[in-house]
């Protein structure tokens, strides 16, 4: 046990102990009583002193107790702490999880707060080591890692950084954090400059696709969390009926992570009015996963509407108790196909069920004014423009103002190019991997797709790769100024894709997704960590969204070049954000939901699987106890001694 503030304790001891002793030896003000004779009293005192060997000690028992009380208080001033595991010379990297599951309230007040306490205790340990070579780095991680305090020995800076780590509702992934520290750890190991101890303070609910690796550091996992209860809305979606667009089908799924079945009441609201209230029983968690209760509603929604679905079961994570969905108004799709002639593509687009399909040659397309492509829903006149444009083997001169799909071509977007396959590459290639969980690739199986001389995509940083071939990315989504461009890097007619079922499925997914402005469904819902670009045409002044009180306020930032679009900050917390200016649906209300079956599973895990390379030593994951403040115990001890002293004082005449 060491003291963080020994000087304070010594000063206090130097003042108070002599004062107490001096006061003790001051003459006690005694009550004077006249007695008939002091003869027997004197004799009794002498006898007692002679016959009681511990009489001196007994007389000083009160003083001893008072000194013990004082010692407890002085020790508390000195901030005693239990000796921890870190050694002088250790470098410490603290990885602090601030994902959605860390907002669970199974520990008071939240897991994140307890994690911060643990991190602060580690930093205090560092100060105790009193070694200038010892320093620490603090990194917060969820689905992304951020260095909140670079490597420093400034303990105040470290403490401030830890306290400032915000709560988020993002997914949790350890891999990005380990990548951030990898080079640093390796550098230390190479220089043989001491040991690096990496503390992962988390509930262990990380969802890395593969086991992360770390070399050259001693990894220690500090578990946060106890036995939580959670029932979550893990899925909420809505689709409009093709035949009856005014009707919408709402799909939802509840997941129960508690050992027993849970009875709760589900409330469905439409535009803040209660539409359905139904009691549901969600089955208990099983060995294979949480207990799931699927739900289905069919609602009549002729215009845009805000759906809110929530349950009233009191659990430890509130972020997933309610989900919102902004259902867009029904619309008939208008698609423009720019091609020199591709019957497969035309038939596939027709199969989607678009209201109007216009086919143009590339030359005809270039003679059109760009404004003619912009979709306008005719309130006063006929519909105009297009919901999506499909370019077949043609790259437009200017980026179209409408969401588009490109086959064997790419829009003139900065950072995006198509690179022909190298001479040595195989003529026919297969798809090696594709993003099965992306909305565009839903139900699209590409393992039988064969491409002849595909081109490789060179993508900007913001692009999302959909499929990767042997030479590199061949399908991707690029966002430019709020416009989505889906690029396919091979010629349809030089592949067997039109013959595969996955082709019309992909066309269906893509046209629908592009028509809805980057959404796969008729409803709009965002996830924490996402950023959204909204048109600010009607808004005067800076665009501002206000969320629930607990979630703070979203402020507008920047403006896209020349376009009346603004990009909002990344959503960090779930909830419903309402525009403070006049905005047209669906941008007036932005729903941000967790809807993550993995993140809603908040049961803490005992160990995190982290593999170490062969050269590393001591890299392991384990549960480690760390130092803790002992001053509350000292204060409690002092109070206990005070009580004993009081009892002895009041009862000493009768003991």
């Amino acid at each position, binding site marked *: 046990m060491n003291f963080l503030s020994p000087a304070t304790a010594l000063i206090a001891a130097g003042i108070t102990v002599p004062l107490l002793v001096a006061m003790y030896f001051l003459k006690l003000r005694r*009550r004077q*009583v*006249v*007695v*008939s*004779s002091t*003869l027997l009293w004197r004799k*009794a005192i002498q006898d007692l002193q002679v016959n009681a060997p511990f009489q001196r000690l007994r007389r000083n028992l009160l003083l001893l107790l008072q000194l013990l009380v004082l010692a407890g208080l002085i020790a508390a001033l000195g901030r005693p702490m239990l000796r921890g595991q870190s050694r002088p010379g250790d470098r410490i990297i603290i990885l602090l999880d601030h994902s959605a599951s860390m907002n669970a309230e199974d520990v008071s007040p939240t897991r994140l707060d307890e994690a911060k306490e643990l991190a602060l205790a580690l930093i205090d340990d560092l100060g105790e080591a009193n070694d200038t070579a010892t320093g620490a780095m603090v990194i917060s991680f969820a689905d992304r890692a951020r260095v909140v305090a670079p490597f420093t020995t400034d303990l105040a800076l470290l403490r401030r950084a830890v306290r400032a780590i915000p709560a988020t509702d993002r997914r949790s992934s350890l891999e990005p954090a380990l990548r951030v520290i990898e080079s640093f750890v390796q550098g230390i190991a190479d220089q043989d400059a001491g040991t690096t101890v990496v503390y992962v303070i988390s509930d262990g609910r990380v969802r890395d696709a593969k086991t992360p690796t770390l070399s050259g550091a001693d990894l220690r996992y500090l578990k946060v969390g106890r036995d939580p209860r959670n029932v979550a809305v893990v899925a909420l979606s809505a689709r409009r009926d093709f035949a009856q667009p005014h009707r919408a089908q709402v799909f939802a799924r509840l997941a129960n992570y508690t050992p027993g079945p849970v009875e709760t009441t589900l409330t469905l609201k439409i535009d803040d009015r209660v539409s359905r209230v139904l009691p549901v029983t969600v089955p208990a968690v099983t060995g294979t996963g949480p207990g799931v209760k699927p739900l289905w509603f069919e609602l009549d929604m002729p215009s845009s509407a805000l759906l809110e679905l929530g349950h009233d079961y009191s659990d430890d994570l509130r972020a997933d108790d309610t989900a919102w969905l902004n259902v867009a108004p029904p619309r008939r799709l208008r698609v423009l196909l720019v091609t020199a002639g591709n019957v497969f593509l035309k038939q596939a687009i027709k199969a989607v069920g678009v209201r109007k399909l216009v086919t143009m040659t590339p030359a005809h397309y270039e003679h059109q004014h760009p404004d003619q492509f912009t979709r306008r829903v005719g309130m006063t006149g006929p519909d105009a423009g297009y919901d999506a444009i499909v370019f077949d083997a043609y790259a437009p001169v200017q980026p179209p103002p409408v969401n588009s799909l490109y086959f064997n071509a790419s829009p003139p977007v900065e950072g995006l190019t198509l690179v022909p396959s190298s001479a040595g590459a195989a003529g026919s290639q297969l798809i090696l991997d594709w993003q099965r969980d992306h909305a565009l690739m839903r139900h699209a199986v590409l393992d039988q797709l064969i491409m002849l001389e595909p081109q490789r995509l060179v993508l900007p940083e913001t692009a999302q790769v959909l499929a990767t071939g042997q030479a590199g990315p061949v399908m991707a989504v690029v966002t430019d100024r709020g416009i989505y461009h889906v690029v396919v890097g091979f010629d349809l007619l030089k592949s067997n894709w039109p013959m595969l079922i996955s082709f019309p499925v992909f066309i269906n997914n893509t046209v629908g997704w592009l028509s809805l402005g980057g959404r796969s469904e008729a409803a709009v819902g965002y996830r924490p960590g996402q950023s959204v670009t909204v048109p600010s045409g009607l808004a005067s002044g800076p665009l501002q969204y206000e969320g629930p009180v607990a979630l703070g306020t979203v402020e507008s930032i920047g403006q896209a070049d020349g376009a009346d679009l603004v990009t909002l900050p990344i959503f960090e917390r779930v909830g419903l954000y309402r525009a403070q200016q006049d905005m047209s649906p669906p941008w007036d209300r932005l729903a941000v939901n967790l809807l993550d079956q993995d993140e809603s599973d908040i049961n803490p895990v005992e160990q995190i699987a982290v593999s170490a390379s062969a050269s590393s030593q001591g890299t392991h994951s384990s549960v480690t106890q760390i130092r803790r403040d002992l001053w509350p115990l000292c204060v409690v001890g002092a109070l206990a001694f005070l009580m004993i002293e009081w009892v002895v004082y009041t009862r000493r005449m009768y003991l």
Partner: protein
Amino acid sequence: MAESDTTTQSRDDQLLSGEFMRRLDQLDVLSRKILAGKLHGERRSKKKGQSVEFADYRQYVAGDDLRFIDWNLYARLDRLFLRLFMEEEDLSVSIILDTTSSMDWGEPSKLVYGKHLAAALGYIGLVNYNRVHLYSFAAGADAQLTNLRGRRLVPRMLQFLRSQSPRGSDHLATVCRRFAMAQRQKGIVIIISDFLDKGDLADALRYLSGSRYDVYAVQVLAPGEIDPEKGNIIGDLRLLDCEDDDATEVSVTAALVKRYKANLASYCRHVRDQCLKRGIAYMATDTSVGFDTVVLRYLRERGLLG
């Protein structure tokens, strides 16, 4: 607790009630020894004298009073015999009352209690035509009322007792020596005191031993002296001796009280042993016991009254 003079005065106004005096009329002071008196009295003397109680015969010698010749015997035996009768003398009863300041302690104070005892014993002595002597001693201010005899002097005796107030201190040895010098006559001596004397008790009692006195020692204590908690003597105190102003600082704890009680018992045993060693009858009482009980029961049990 010391008692004010006013309280003392009010308490000893009624030293003897009428009812109590009627009960005392049936008692007399008894001596374990037959002691010679000065005057004819109601107590049988060793000497033969003039009373109605026949004692013996003896031969007539010239000069004897012809009135005591038994003429009936002369008629039968033709010899002169003189009839002898028992001589009755009075008994000297000396009551020594301790009036030092230590006696003015307790509720009721030991002095008041002692005055009651002295009044009762003096009354018994007076109504039985004994010669009653009252002595009080304190700090060189001795007072005495001697040679009282007969019922008519009861008020004077009570007045003397009422006038005694606590004052100063004196060693018991000095008191006993002064008494022995003043009272040369044989008789019963009753000393009423708390015997809480810092001097040598054996030295004091030495003056009262011997065949001249038949001594009774009555030790009077207050309940607060026997159990300090009853006297509110507990806690951090500065004890002040009411006689010599000797101050003692004590923290009165349960252990100390226990030790005090043991010392008190030991001291009382010491007083009793010293008394018995010198043929002095010893009796201890405390002021919580009614003085009528002491007089009518305890003193009778010990043979002082009968």
